[in-house]
């Protein structure tokens, strides 16, 4: 069995893991990151895109609020290309208590969160699709953040400093020698080959799956509760500002404009297994009603895709001595689980809880804790260091791809028309990632994430993938079928109205015209 040696083994390639790898690499640690699938395939790639101002927590969870206020500002400085300054609104809907607005204002004041109450008329002018029956409105500095861009930027930054990022490498077992974790045995999911990774320290950044990893070190019962939430992406920006319901956190109370879509979310249901998170029809119906409350006519707008993500809620009785009834009552702040103290196992730390907005702080806390245990004084620089592609300090703007495309209108073929992806970029990404999986390409570029959900571009992309030499005929067809199957998962629960029309047209293309099902092999 092949083996690798490193200073730090990071388990988990979501926002937390990528942030940790970046922080470690900046501090001069040799780092290996492993994830059983593609980067951000877990929770990070399935979140709604809200860069919290902190407004959602000012009343109920002041610690989380403070963290968001600080980190929001820092992230805008260090990963501006991943963030759009959409601004945010908190609105008191007809179903909410206007008095909550006062508690909200007070909470914001305490947290130094800049907010302003504006007139309902002004709010409607800003966002014409908003429910005209809203009673109060407040502005906040929410933004939207692209998780994939973020994770990839951090990973590439770490990589540029020597880190090894190993996707599709699943941790099969942790190696324990005496009372310390010394690394892991890892399996390459694409080749089946196993690999031995030896590390001075192991950082568990696997989020909702943390308990599964921790078990491999012989530690039972780490209180990570997978909290399932569903989200629906709507075909276009119904709003250009993040809209939050001004009330105690509830289901379907945020509508986030992120890239070309607006995402409504979310729910919060305890899940037994983070890999078993089906979307149910009832959840979808409830979410559509929640949407109507914020934007009348929501049910007539086009839903593109529905998916479930799973939050890592940390509630460890051993650590904090409390239990909570509703997963919503669990604090959204994060915690470093010190396994020396808690379980007598060294050279191993787990990050739990948290949210994407605080990813940098989570990484900092985790790596600081590691440095303390190692007795090494290596300061954190992630409050100022910028990963690749974020150097010009410009925040992301929605028109970026349109602008880029305008410049190459006559020079480059457009492959994914909905998301404006040109052929050159597509081929480059396929080669760079060395992937045979169209879903990997989708995550990197948003291929097939527009209205037609790949109806037109996937045949083209399959042909290109085949041409770029990555696949033979049967593999290409298998990849195409796999993409269609994966896409269907997110489509069928919201298949009504315009999206049903699209699906039927796409059925005609894939089954009636191409007859993908009957390709040999």
């Amino acid at each position, binding site marked *: 069995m092949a083996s690798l040696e490193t200073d730090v083994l990071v388990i988990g390639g979501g926002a937390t893991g990528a942030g940790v790898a970046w922080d470690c690499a900046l501090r001069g640690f040799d780092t290996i990151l492993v994830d059983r699938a593609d980067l951000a395939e877990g929770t990070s790639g399935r979140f709604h895109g809200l860069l919290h101002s902190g407004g959602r927590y000012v009343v109920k969870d002041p610690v989380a609020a403070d963290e968001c206020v600080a980190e929001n500002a820092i992230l805008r400085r260090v990963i501006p290309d991943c963030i759009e300054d959409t601004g945010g609104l908190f609105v008191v809907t007809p179903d909410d208590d206007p008095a909550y607005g006062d508690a909200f204002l007070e909470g914001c004041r305490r947290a130094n969160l800049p907010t302003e109450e504006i007139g309902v008329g002004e709010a409607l002018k800003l966002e014409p699709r908003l429910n005209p029956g809203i009673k109060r409105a407040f502005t906040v500095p929410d933004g939207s953040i692209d998780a994939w861009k973020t994770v990839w930027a951090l990973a590439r930054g770490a990589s540029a400093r020597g880190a090894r990022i190993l996707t599709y490498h699943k941790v099969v077992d942790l190696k324990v020698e005496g009372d310390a974790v010394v690394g892991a045995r890892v399996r390459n999911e694409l080749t089946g080959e196993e690999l031995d990774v030896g590390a001075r320290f192991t950082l568990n950044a696997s989020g909702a799956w943390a308990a599964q990893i921790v078990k491999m070190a012989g530690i039972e019962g780490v209180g990570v509760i997978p909290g399932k939430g569903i989200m629906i992406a709507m075909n276009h*920006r119904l709003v250009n500002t993040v809209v939050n319901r001004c009330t105690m956190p509830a289901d379907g109370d945020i509508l986030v404009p992120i890239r*070309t879509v607006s995402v409504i979310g979310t729910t919060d249901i305890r899940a037994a297994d983070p890999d078993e998170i089906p979307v149910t029809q009832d959840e979808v119906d409830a979410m559509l009603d929640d949407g109507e409350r914020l934007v009348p006519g929501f049910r007539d707008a086009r839903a593109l895709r529905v998916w479930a993500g799973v939050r890592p809620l940390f509630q460890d009785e051993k650590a904090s001595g409390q239990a909570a009834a509703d997963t919503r009552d669990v604090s959204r702040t994060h915690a470093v689980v010190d396994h020396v103290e808690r379980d007598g196992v060294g050279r191993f730390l787990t990050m739990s809880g948290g949210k994407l907005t605080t990813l940098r702080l989570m990484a900092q806390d985790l790596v600081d804790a590691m440095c303390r245990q190692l007795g090494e004084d290596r300061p954190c620089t992630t409050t100022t260091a910028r990963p690749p592609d974020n150097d010009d300090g410009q925040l992301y703007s929605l028109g970026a791809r349109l602008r880029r495309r305008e410049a190459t209108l006559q020079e480059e073929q457009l492959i994914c028309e909905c998301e404006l992806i040109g052929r050159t970029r597509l081929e480059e990404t396929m080669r760079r990632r060395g992937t045979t999986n169209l879903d990997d390409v989708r995550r990197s570029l948003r291929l097939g994430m527009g*209205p037609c959900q790949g109806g037109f571009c996937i045949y083209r992309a399959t042909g290109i993938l085949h041409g770029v030499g990555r696949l033979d005929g049967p593999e290409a067809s298998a990849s195409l079928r796999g993409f269609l199957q994966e896409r269907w998962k997110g489509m069928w629960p919201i298949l009504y109205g315009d999206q049903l029309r699209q699906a039927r047209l796409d059925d005609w293309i894939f089954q009636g015209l191409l007859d993908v099902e009957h390709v040999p092999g």
Partner: protein
Amino acid sequence: MAVDHDVLGDLMRGSLDHCVKCTICETFCPVSNVTPLFPGPKYVGPQAERFRVWDETSPDQSLDYCSGCGVCTQVCPQGVHIAEINTQARAKLRERTGFKLRDRLLARPDLIGRLSTPVAPVVNVTLRHGGARAIADTALGLDRRAALPAYPGRTFQRWARKHTSPPAARRVAYFHGCGANWSEPDTAERTVQLLEWLGCQVDVPKGQLCCGLPAQSNGMFDLARKYTRRMARTLAPSAREGVDIVGTSTSCTLMLKREAREILGLDADADLRAVSDGIYDICEYLLMLHDRGELRTDFRPLPITVTYHAPCQQQGHGIGKPALDLMALVPELRVIENDATCCGVAGTYGLKQEKYEIAMKVGRGLFDQIADAAPELAVCDSETCRWHIEKATGVRTVHPIEILHRAAGLAS
């Protein structure tokens, strides 16, 4: 400055949800089929709109090549208001990037008409003078080869003021359009004569000015709204009295019937609603009468051959091609229906230096068909199209009512 976001305006943008990327609009787009400078209606409409934030400048200048012909909306099987989305997007783009002097002039036909009419002979000569046109081309961007209107030096309104329409059972109000007023008063006069022959008493509401269509097409929405509201106020009294309004400028009629409400967001204007509900393209109106058995059909034989091209904006009414049905009532008249989407001029589009050649390529098929038919006359419902076709083919091009006017024995 924010563009009006009323319900209908937002519905135009919201209709992008219906787009299933089928590309049918692109197969019909007369512009993208002849030039790569325009990426096509699907691209600049429902697709790019998802990348536009309403208070930021859209980065896609290529949108400006849309001619606004509206064919895309007509053929879209899913009901996306593509042309309307494009027109609104272009206005936002122009608001931010500024308006050329040329476009400001083109948006104000009454101003030009008022200045030119007293000195018409001079103006007409100048407009045909190579040197003057070359200057206009370089300084303003008005292509020297484009067909500009002529100014006969008399207006239709003056004629109408002196004309009394004999009382009759049916009353109609005539919306003549500023183009006819300044440049084709003959067409308008003959329209009145024909309507009277058909048994109508014709009111010509006074003070009719530009309806705002050129301003709208050039992205000057504030100016367009001003003009449209003014025109609506002028015609509303007729509508409220239950008098049907008929127009011979098919594109301007469409503006008041539908486009101003959808694109400019003027749906709440009561005058415009009243006018919109009661205005008809003249061929539409006459065919309606015919369907009711109320049209006089004793036309004389007219043994000539004519071609007929239905302009894009006539098709935008959604009434089929009533001109064909009407001309079929004229004995011995041979009508060859042209099979072309657009003649290319699209209002003021084809006059512009950066678009003239595109416009000529767009119209090539139509011009060839007309040449092959070698007709006595070419027939077309829109005045700017007539001037453009006539210049390109050398064939005298007239409004359908001229055919009926002749067949009614009214030509002197």
